[in-house]
C-alpha cells in the first residue's frame, strides 16, 4: 500500500448519511498550558534529561547575551534574541534524533546551536559574511529562514520525502505567533495532515510580532486550536517550562515517527529582549509586563525544581556557568576575527555551473578589484 493510498478516498455522501471524517474531540488542546515543573508531573521526569536541559538553558542564555553584545561592537549586523525563550529552543534541539531535521526561523539560532551547529557558523547570516554559514546536511538543520512561515512547507516536504523513501525521520519546524497568520502556515499544516507527514510544528507564542500583540494577530481561543481545522492534534504547553516543552514535543515526535502524522504545539512564552538589538520595545510594552515574565524565567523554573529535589547543587550550577562562559569566550574571540571574504563566491553558487554571463561578470569584478588594489585613487569611490 502506498503512502497516499493509506488515507483512502473520501467519497461524498448525501447529508443524512454524512459522517465527520475524524472525531474532533481528541484534537482539541487542553484549556490551559501543560506544565511539569512545580507540579506533580515533575516527579516522573528523567533527572538526567532535566540536568541536560538546565546546562543548555544556561549556555543558551549566555549565547544570547554574547550575540547581543557583539551587535554593539559592530560584529553582528543584527541579532534577534531568544532570551526568555530558551526552553523552547533547547527542548526543540534535544528532542530530536540525529537523523531528524530541524527547521528554524530567523530567531532560532540558539536551537541550531543547541543541535550542534557551530556557534560562529550559526551567526554567519546575522554577521553578514554569507547567508547560511553551515552545511545544512551536517547536523540536519535547514537554513535559518527569514521569510516568515515559508520554512514550514519545506519541513512537510522533507518529512514526506523521508517517509516515501522508507526512512524513519521526523522534521520539527519552528514558527512564531505572528508567522501563524501567513498563508504558508495554513498550507503547510494542511499538506502535513493530508499526507500524514511525520512533522511537528512548534509555535513559539512570545506574545508579539515585533510590536504587534497577539490580540491583533488572532481571535482564536489559542493558536493550538488551529490544529483541529487541519485534523491534527493541537497541544498547548508552558513554553518556559523546559521539561513540559520537551515532554510534549517528545510525544509529538514519537507519534509522528510511529506514523501517526503531524502535531501542532503552541508554547506560551515571552521574548524578554526587544525584537532585535535595533528595536525599541518600550514603544509598545510596559516594563511591568516584562517583569511579570521575568518571574517566570525558564532557567529559574528549572533551577528551582532541580535544587528543590537535590538534583543540582552549587557545584553543578557553577559548572554550567563555566561551560557557558567558555563558549561565550570562544565565540567572542572567533567573532572578533574578520571573516575571510571571497567576492568570487558571489558568482560561484548561483547555478551548478556559472553561465557565460556570470563568468563575464566575475571577470569584470576581478579586474575592478585589481585596479582598486593597484591605484589608490579608485579606493575612495
Amino acid at each position: 500500500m502506498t503512502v497516499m493510498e493509506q488515507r483512502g478516498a473520501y467519497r461524498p455522501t448525501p447529508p443524512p448519511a454524512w459522517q465527520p471524517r475524524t472525531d474532533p474531540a481528541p484534537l482539541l488542546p487542553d484549556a490551559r498550558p501543560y506544565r511539569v515543573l512545580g507540579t506533580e508531573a515533575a516527579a516522573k521526569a528523567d533527572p538526567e534529561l532535566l540536568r541536560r536541559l538546565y546546562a543548555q538553558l544556561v549556555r543558551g542564555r549566555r549565547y544570547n547575551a554574547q550575540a547581543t553584545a557583539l551587535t554593539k561592537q559592530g560584529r553582528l549586523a543584527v541579532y534577534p534574541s531568544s532570551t526568555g525563550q530558551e526552553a523552547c529552543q533547547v527542548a526543540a534541539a534535544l528532542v530530536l534524533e540525529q537523523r531528524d531535521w530541524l527547521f528554524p526561523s530567523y530567531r532560532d539560532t540558539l536551537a541550531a546551536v543547541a543541535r550542534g551547529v557551530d556557534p560562529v557558523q550559526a551567526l554567519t547570516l546575522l554577521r553578514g559574511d554569507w547567508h547560511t554559514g553551515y552545511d545544512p546536511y551536517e547536523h540536519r538543520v535547514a537554513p535559518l529562514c527569514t521569510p516568515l512561515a515559508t520554512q514550514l512547507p519545506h519541513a512537510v516536504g522533507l518529512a514526506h520525502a523521508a517517509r516515501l523513501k522508507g526512512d524513519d525521520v521526523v522534521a520539527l519546524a519552528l514558527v512564531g505567533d505572528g508567522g501563524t497568520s501567513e498563508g504558508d502556515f495554513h498550507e503547510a499544516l494542511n499538506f502535513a495532515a493530508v499526507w500524514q507527514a511525520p512533522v511537528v510544528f512548534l509555535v513559539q507564542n512570545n506574545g508579539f510580532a515585533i510590536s504587534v500583540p497577539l490580540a491583533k494577530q488572532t481571535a482564536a481561543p489559542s493558536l493550538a486550536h488551529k490544529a483541529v481545522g487541519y485534523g491534527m492534534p493541537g497541544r498547548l504547553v508552558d513554553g518556559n517550562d523546559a521539561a513540559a516543552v520537551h515532554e510534549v514535543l517528545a510525544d509529538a515526535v514519537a507519534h509522528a515517527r510511529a506514523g501517526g502524522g503531524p502535531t501542532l504545539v503552541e508554547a506560551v512564552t515571552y521574548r524578554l529582549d526587544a525584537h532585535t538589538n535595533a528595536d525599541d520595545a518600550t514603544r509598545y510594552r510596559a516594563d511591568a509586563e516584562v517583569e511579570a515574565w521575568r518571574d517566570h524565567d525558564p532557567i529559574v523554573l528549572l533551577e528551582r525544581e532541580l535544587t528543590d529535589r537535590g538534583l543540582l547543587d552549587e557545584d553543578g550550577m557553577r559548572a554550567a556557568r563555566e561551560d557557558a562562559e567558555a563558549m561565550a569566550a570562544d565565540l567572542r574571540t572567533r567573532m572578533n576575527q574578520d571573516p575571510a571574504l571571497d567576492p568570487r563566491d558571489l558568482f560561484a553558487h548561483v547555478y551548478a555551473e556559472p553561465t557565460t554571463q556570470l563568468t563575464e561578470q566575475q571577470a569584470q569584478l576581478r579586474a575592478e578589484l585589481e585596479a582598486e588594489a593597484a591605484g589608490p585613487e579608485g579606493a575612495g569611490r
Partner: protein
Amino acid sequence: MTTVALKPATMAQALTRALRDAMAADASVHVMGEDVGTLGGVFRVTDGLAKEFGDDRCTDTPLAEAGILGTAVGMAMYGLRPVVEMQFDAFAYPAFEQLVSHVARMRNRTRGAMPLPITVRVPYGGGIGGVEHHSDSSEAYYMATPGLHVVTPATVADAYGLLRAAIASDDPVVFLEPKRLYWSKDTWNPEEPEAVEPIGRAVVRRPGRSATLITYGPSLPVCLEAAEAARAEGWDLEVVDLRSLVPFDDETVTASVRRTGRAVVVHESNGFGGPGGEIAARVTERCFHYLEAPVLRVAGFDIPYPPPMLERHHLPGVDRILDAVGRLQWQAGS
C-alpha cells in the same frame, strides 16, 4: 542502420513521454500538482503516470500552489527531484514567494551545499480562447529572477528533449509550455527521441540573410509563417528559436544578427518590461556597429491579457511582424 518509422505526435504527448521516461529512469523523480493524478492534468500531460508509477510518484496535492512548491522544496532537500505542475500561468503567482525567495536562492544561500533540482512546469500564453487568468505570459517575472533557468519548447522534439534536460538539471528550471502548441503535431520518433543539447542553446530554425526574427515558444510558428510570407516582399528572414531564456545564448543570437544586420524580437508577452527589452538591449550592446536599424520588438500590447473574443488583436501576428520588418530602414543598407 535501421529505418525508424516516424509517427506524428503532439507536443502534449511528447511531454507525457518525457515525464514517463524520466520517472522510469530515476526513482527520485516525483510529479505533483493539482489534478495530475487520476485526471492526468487538465491538459492530460500527466496522463497515465499515476497508474504506472502509483500515487506516491504522481500525486494529486491539495489546492495550494505555494504549498505545492514549498513542499517540493522540502522534498528536493531530501534528495528527490520534484516536477511540479502549475495548472495555468496565473495560478503560479501564489507560489511566487517560494519561487523567488527559496527555489531560486537555496543553492546560492548554502554555498552549493543544498541544490534544488526542481522543475516547475507552467502552461503559458494565450491563443486558446481561455477566459481571464488563463493566458498570461509570465516569463518576464522568471527571467528577472537570478537562480532560475527558464526554458520553453516550440517544437515537439524540443518538448521532449528540453523537459528531460530540465528534470536532469541540478538547478531549478521554470519550464514554460506554450498552451496553444500542446496540440501541435510533428513527426517525431518517441522510441528514439532526438538528442537535445543541454539547456541554454538557441537554434536557427530557418536560415536567412535579410534580417533575424528572434523568438521562442508560441511565437515560433508565427515567425516561420511570417518568414514564408516575407519572401513575397523580397526579404529572406532568419528565424532564431531561443528555447532557453535563461541562460541566454548570446553566441547564436549575436552571430545571426551580425550576419543579417537587422533584427526583430517577437513574443506574446507584454512589450513594456517584457523579455524583448532585455533581448533587444543585449543584442544592441553586442552588435551595434553591425546594425542597419534599431532592433525592433513585436509583442503583446501593454494591457492585461484580453478576453478570448479580442485576443487576436493582442497577439503578434504575421502582419505585425512584417510591418516591423518593413520598418528596419531598408533604404539605408543592403
